[in-house]
């Protein structure tokens, strides 16, 4: 049981980092990206390749994953500068679809559809951190760092400027804010954090393939942020706990026959989500627009 809970907690922590990084885009900058799994994947592949070809050091892999995802996030930042709202959603959808094809075809970097198998056990500055409880602690530390960085940034002028852009881009521009620079910075930062989450995911799973970085994954992470509550530090984490732990909890129901387990779980899960959105439209930990 402890191994299972550790496994769930580790995945929840990794997805917590991923959801918090998307919250930076959606919640604070108003950039509705449905291509976040792409940057999660870029980090995962970069970290895995570094571990397999050079050294399985988590710190170096996180740097590599963050850098690759951050640098390639310009693919997302460029359309974000020109369009917003539903137009940007369509642009990010295009990026997501293109990336899945690239991940499937770029055999040398991603292993194609078969993925990368046999990612070595993680170490940190020469110490073995592969034991599940140790790896969980490392993931929690990274999550704490990410949350501190987001909190510090969002309380400063950068965060206030981002929120001003989110609420009214033209008003922010009229007040002298450099909208293009601020948006680009937000995208680079959010995607680099997603890349770090990807590195942790790759080391933890010891296997990555394109199936983990699809549109469904992007939508799941977006649902975590929205259901938990956007523009709050705790909201995405609540969303992660709910969306990851609810299906896991439902698997303990003893009365579901094996042939019906999937459909019954999905029904309960879907109903819970619908009710939640009816009664808590701003998310579980969210604040209404007037309170922000």
């Amino acid at each position, binding site marked *: 049981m402890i191994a299972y809970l550790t496994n769930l907690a580790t995945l929840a922590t990794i997805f917590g980092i991923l959801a918090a990084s998307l919250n930076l885009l959606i919640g604070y900058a108003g950039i509705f990206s449905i291509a976040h799994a792409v940057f999660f994947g870029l980090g995962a592949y970069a970290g895995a390749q570094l571990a397999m070809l050079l050294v399985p050091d988590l710190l170096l892999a996180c740097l590599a994953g963050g850098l690759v995802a951050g640098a390639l996030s310009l693919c997302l930042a460029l359309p974000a500068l020109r369009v917003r709202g539903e137009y940007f959603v369509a642009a990010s959808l295009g990026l997501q679809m293109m990336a899945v094809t690239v991940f499937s*075809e770029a055999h040398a970097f991603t292993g194609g559809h078969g993925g990368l198998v046999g990612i070595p056990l993680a170490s940190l500055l020469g110490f073995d951190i592969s034991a599940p409880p140790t790896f969980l602690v490392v993931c929690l530390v990274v999550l704490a760092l990410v949350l501190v960085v987001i909190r510090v940034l969002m309380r400063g002028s950068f965060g206030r400027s981002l929120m001003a852009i989110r609420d009214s881009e033209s008003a922010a521009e009229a007040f002298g804010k450099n909208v293009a620079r601020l948006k680009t910075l937000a995208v680079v930062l959010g995607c680099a954090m997603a890349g770090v989450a990807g590195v942790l995911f790759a080391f933890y799973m010891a296997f990555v393939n394109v199936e983990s970085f699809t549109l469904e994954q992007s939508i799941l992470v977006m649902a975590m942020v929205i259901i938990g509550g956007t523009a709050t530090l705790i909201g995405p984490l609540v969303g992660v706990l709910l969306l990851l732990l609810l299906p896991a909890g439902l698997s303990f129901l003893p009365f579901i026959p094996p042939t019906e387990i*999937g459909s019954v779980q999905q029904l309960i899960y879907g109903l819970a989500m619908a009710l939640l959105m009816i009664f808590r439209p701003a998310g579980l930990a969210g604040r209404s627009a007037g309170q922000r």
Partner: protein
Amino acid sequence: MLQRRTFLLTTAAGLAAPAVLRAQGSPYVVGTLFPMSGPNAEYGMLFTNAVQLAFEHIKADGMLKRPIDLRAQDSLATPQGGAVGMQKLASVDGASYVMLGFTGVSKAAAPIGTRSKVMMVNGGGVGPDLAGLSPYFWNVIPLVNQEVKALLPWLRQKSLKRIALIYVDDPLGNSVLEQLRKGLPEAGGELADTYSVPPTAQQFAAVAAKVRSVNADAVYFASYGAQQSQIIKQLRDNGIKQQLLTYSAGSIPSVLSLPESEGLVYTSQAADWSSAQDPVTQRFVKDWRAKHNSDPSIYHQNYYNAMRLFALLAQELEKAGTPVNGENLLATLLKVRHFTFVGGEGTFQDNGTLELPMQINQIHDGRAQKIA
């Protein structure tokens, strides 16, 4: 002193007795890790129905002294779902034997199962990268390269020399490509042209146009899931009249029931339901038809065999008085190797695959018939 020792021993035995008794009667936990929701739920249902029939047969025959507790986990057909499900089966449910399918799920679950010393058995994925995945990971199914090898003599016999290949760009498709590229010249044929398609593609009209221009003797397609039916339908709709060929994925109900599948030839392990002589196969087919009012598919056969394999291994361990756990199940498999399965005698190879007799089937009126 003696009295005190006797007292302590008696007390310890008394305290331990309920646990020992409980252990003797506690069921063997066997897990399934199939997609039970989402677009691949059809497969999960196919696999589970087969496992349940084998489960009923094992129970009816009294093969094991203890009952089997079957625990299901929904893998969602994703690596992440596979990892979470495998972890629960291994560390919460205490499963010593888990049946699973789908390449991504298998690859994500294998390290967890290996760490927990759980024996894992695949009966769905036929990609060659599933061979040798882990010492605890076994396949009760011949992999796709073995299927292609079995087809080559038939192609020669039918004078089908120029073959066009449509393959999904993943380890499965690439393995078929490699095997045909190597095997066709040896069988007096040639690969007329090859067309790689992404695993998510659903539109094949452009590919069909290219295949037409090549004018090959036959068209082999290597794909899976909903793509199989789409390829068949779109090839026929676009005027491809040549012989269509594929591997055991041609046996799924959605392909069999498709009118355009008429005449399709596919390879599979021995599964001749109409003239099977061995009692294991006869009983499987008879009971399946009675229960489901249809013929079983290759996947039903595989997962029936996977469940049967557990019972055969556990039976050996019970005879030897050895605990039934993942380590001992694996040791018994490595020792015995040769088992009587549905479809014939099967021998497990060192690379984790099963060698079974192969056959060639053709679809007529929505049913598969053995032709070679």
